[in-house]
């Protein structure tokens, strides 16, 4: 097994301040074959994400955001270029090796929850921890901790379908974090939620980031993106901009600079 996959991740590994490089892509491309020919979804992306860093990816529909996330997480093979996770080159790994890597080191949250409908909320989270290598006792403790934090303890034995969309998405986040991944990849996690549930999921992501969770998040929602340390703008499969988010002063007077209250 690779050095990376065999090394146990401890809490202390996850620093609050962004640390050394965690994920790096070099000249990454992805070409899809279509009926009419080929479609260049990703056209040479050099991206670096450090430990504990929170990076949002924005861009118009069809700019390659979701494809990039899928390729970085090994759900789709890259056409060319390199992906490095820690110090291991992973782009050429087999599907099976990728699966192992993901189980241990990567968490995914999608727009539509994707919980296992035949399992209870508790099992959805606990099984993810078990697959990630936790002991039975460890997995249960982790599940209790996460559900408690999300205010979902009372629903632990419910089936996912009995939960609201917002609750299901919180469970999906809990599941993705159950095995303490070094990297959380998430694609429009609030895309199907109302504003109250969006706020709840954002709080959750921000709290986990504050504890050192590295996150790559694809979103259309500027409120979501503005929480990140950095925003990458993807355009036509290439990075058009990559910059830190710095709070802008709300001058001359708070919201009135954006929204005027008039007579």
């Amino acid at each position: 097994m690779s050095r990376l996959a065999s090394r146990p991740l401890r809490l202390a590994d996850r620093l609050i301040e962004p640390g050394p490089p965690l994920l790096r892509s070099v000249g990454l491309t992805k070409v899809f074959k279509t009926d009419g020919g080929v479609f260049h979804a990703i056209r040479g992306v050099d991206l670096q994400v450090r430990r504990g860093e929170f990076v949002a990816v924005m861009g118009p529909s069809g700019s390659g955001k979701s494809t990039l996330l899928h390729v970085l997480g090994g759900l789709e093979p890259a056409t060319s270029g390199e992906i490095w996770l820690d110090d291991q080159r992973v782009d050429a790994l087999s599907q099976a090796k990728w699966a192992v890597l993901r189980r241990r080191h990567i968490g995914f949250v999608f727009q539509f929850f994707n919980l296992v409908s035949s399992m209870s909320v508790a099992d959805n989270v606990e099984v993810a921890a078990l697959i990630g290598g936790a002991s039975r006792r460890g997995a249960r403790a982790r599940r209790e901790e996460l559900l408690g934090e999300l205010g979902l303890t009372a629903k632990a034995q419910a089936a996912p379908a009995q939960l609201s969309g917002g609750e299901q998405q919180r469970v999906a986040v809990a599941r993705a974090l159950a095995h303490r991944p070094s990297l959380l990849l998430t694609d429009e996690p609030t895309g199907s939620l109302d504003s109250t549930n969006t706020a709840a999921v954002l709080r959750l992501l921000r709290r986990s980031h504050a504890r050192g969770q590295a996150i790559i998040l694809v979103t259309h929602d500027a409120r979501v993106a503005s929480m990140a340390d950095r925003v990458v703008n993807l355009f036509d499969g290439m990075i058009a901009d990559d910059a830190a988010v710095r709070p802008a002063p709300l001058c001359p007077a708070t919201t009135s600079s954006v929204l005027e209250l008039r007579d």
Partner: protein
Amino acid sequence: MRLPLLALLAKEPAHGYELKVRLEQMFGDAYPPPNIGQIYLTLQRLERSGLVHSEDVVQSDRPNKRVYELTPAGREAVATWAEEPSDGPRVRDYFFMKLVLGPLAGVTDRLSLINRQRRHYLGLMRSLSALAEEAEDDEGAAEGNKIGGLLIEGAMLHLQADLDWLERCQEELL
């Protein structure tokens, strides 16, 4: 400032400082605290236009206070104001001017302009989120913060629209 003051006075007579406090309570942290000088100035103007009238109320232990009351004309002004539809959001044309003319002048290019503007909007969004969170956390002064929270949400939705539009510019012009 004119109509918010008239609307508050339609509820009950008040003096200038009370109006300031009420505005603050109504709008919470989202709206800049009204300047007391500006309130007095506006009240004087309203009185000159015949929309309010005032009289001094004697206080035993403090200086007299001037209490303002709505006139029938003032009440009518409030009713008219409430019935009129309000303008839609203003169109931001300052940036668009730059986008069109900046490259022409040879001082910048469109990608840089769009990127800079997007960063700025995201920074504003970040600050608004922080403000929204403060309003949420501080549940003590319930009513004002609820209204303030809605105001912040409105500002965020406008910003989101600005960002979407920036994306359209990017798609069409780059």
